[in-house]
């Protein structure tokens, strides 16, 4: 029960924190006043709530409503495997990493459905494009995650945390965290991996959405950012492990750190055209994840 409350609290706090950091970073890069950016998330929320929701011509209504809701649920489900302290997790199962992987895979489905359901060309192109990039990105993350399971000798997330008592995985498997961050950008549709909601398609899967629907999708994206950051902090940065402060505090701090990194990358690094990214994913990044896996295996056998 405490774990469930903790998950919901962390999600809510993460959505607020993510929105604020995002607005501040955007204002800083855009050369606009940073102070008003602190209130910007609330104002934008109010603005979106006071606008009409769009209905396109003959949309797939069921999926149009389900997609943002499912995205939010996936964020919560993904976060549920993260332990806040020894033994305190909503789903403390021996296959936590596989469950997280299933959430990743379903994000691809949800984003595609979001683009599909509007029954309009630009969202559909966005959805298609996202599938092409999102699937290989997800494959890479699975290899990287299996790498972290090797020293823990378990697919359970708690065991992965405990295996980092001496040395965190970010140091033990130096390729792991950077590759995993790519997935984070991909499943939250951000910056260099924003192929679903991209600007050249005037918002891609979001091109035909306004009002509450837009707000929901935005919120779900930020919730997923929180869930991913907590997962990255747990699997690569030792999660709740740390001196002096209590365990949950460490987890929150590390989560915030990962979120900051992702937000910075979002606004500072350019995105390459999809065809080029697809080539890189299959020919450079996927082999790199194999190297990471071999590295992790050799290290675990030591």
């Amino acid at each position, binding site marked *: 029960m405490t774990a469930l409350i903790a998950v919901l609290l962390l999600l809510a706090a993460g959505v607020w924190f993510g929105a604020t950091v995002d607005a501040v970073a955007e204002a800083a890069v855009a050369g606009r006043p940073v102070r008003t950016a602190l209130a910007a998330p609330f104002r934008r929320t109010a603005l979106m709530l006071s606008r009409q929701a769009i209905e396109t011509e*003959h949309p*797939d209504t069921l*999926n149009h409503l389900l997609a943002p809701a499912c995205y939010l649920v996936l964020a919560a489900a993904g976060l549920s495997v993260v332990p806040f302290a020894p033994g305190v997790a909503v789903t403390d*199962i*021996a*296959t936590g990493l*596989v*469950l997280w*992987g*299933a959430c990743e*895979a*379903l994000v*691809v*489905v949800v984003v*595609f*459905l979001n683009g*599909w359901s509007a*029954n309009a060309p630009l969202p559909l192109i966005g959805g*298609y494009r996202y*599938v092409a990039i999102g*699937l290989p990105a*997800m494959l890479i993350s699975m290899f990287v995650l299996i790498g972290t399971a090797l020293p823990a000798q378990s*697919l359970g997330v708690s065991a992965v945390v405990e295996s980092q008592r001496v040395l965190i995985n970010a140091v033990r498997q130096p390729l792991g965290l950077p590759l995993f961050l790519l997935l984070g950008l991909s499943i939250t549709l951000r910056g260099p991996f924003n192929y679903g909601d991209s600007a050249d398609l005037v918002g891609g899967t979001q091109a035909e959405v306004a009002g509450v629907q837009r707000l929901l999708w935005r919120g779900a994206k930020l919730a997923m950012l929180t869930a991913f950051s907590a997962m990255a902090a747990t699997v690569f940065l030792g999660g709740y492990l740390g001196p002096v402060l209590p365990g949950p505090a460490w987890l929150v701090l590390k989560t915030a750190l990962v979120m900051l990194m992702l937000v910075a990358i979002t606004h500072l690094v350019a995105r390459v055209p999809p065809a080029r990214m697809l080539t890189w994913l299959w020919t450079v990044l996927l082999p790199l994840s194999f190297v990471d896996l071999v590295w992790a295996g050799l290290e675990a056998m030591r």
Partner: protein
Amino acid sequence: MTLSDIAFWLFSAGAVWTAWRVFRTDSMVRASFALMLSFFCVAAILLLLSAPYLGIATIFMMAVEMMVMALFMVMFMMNPAGLNPMMMVHQHKVSIGAGVAAFAGLGAAALLTDLPHHAVAAGKPVIRDLGTELLGGSMLIFETAGITLLATMVATVVLSSRSGRFGAADEGSRPPGLEPGGKPAGRAPERDSDHSHHAEHGG
């Protein structure tokens, strides 16, 4: 009736109903994802059957597979959204008969056979068992599956790519002669080519 019994019947009903919807919806994308939901219901039953790894792995795999399925649906169907009614069937009555017969036969077999009763002991380390089996006693089978998948990948690329060994796949190709400069071996590709686009989709 315990809680897990109720869950089992709910998921069973879900699995069968979504499976039925696959062939009854006009929208091809919905059909793909109805199939995905059917798999998810079965995965939930697997979880109830104390097979946690298999259950979650099924969800993981089917999410990806059905995503690809939906893509191919949109690609190849001329009306993927089902804006027009969609009923592309042949030998319909025979198929219904075969489906009913299969269900009746298998169902009768299930009801009439004296089935063994020996449930998994609670607390059995099933995931560890699976791991040691995969990489221990049955390693050869597991590796064979892996190699087969690799072969599948190669075969898939060969089959679907345009550039063939002897020319573009859609132009028809002839292997070169058996001796250098000789007559091309094999039959000349026919130039009839029923390239009437979507010729098959009559009313």
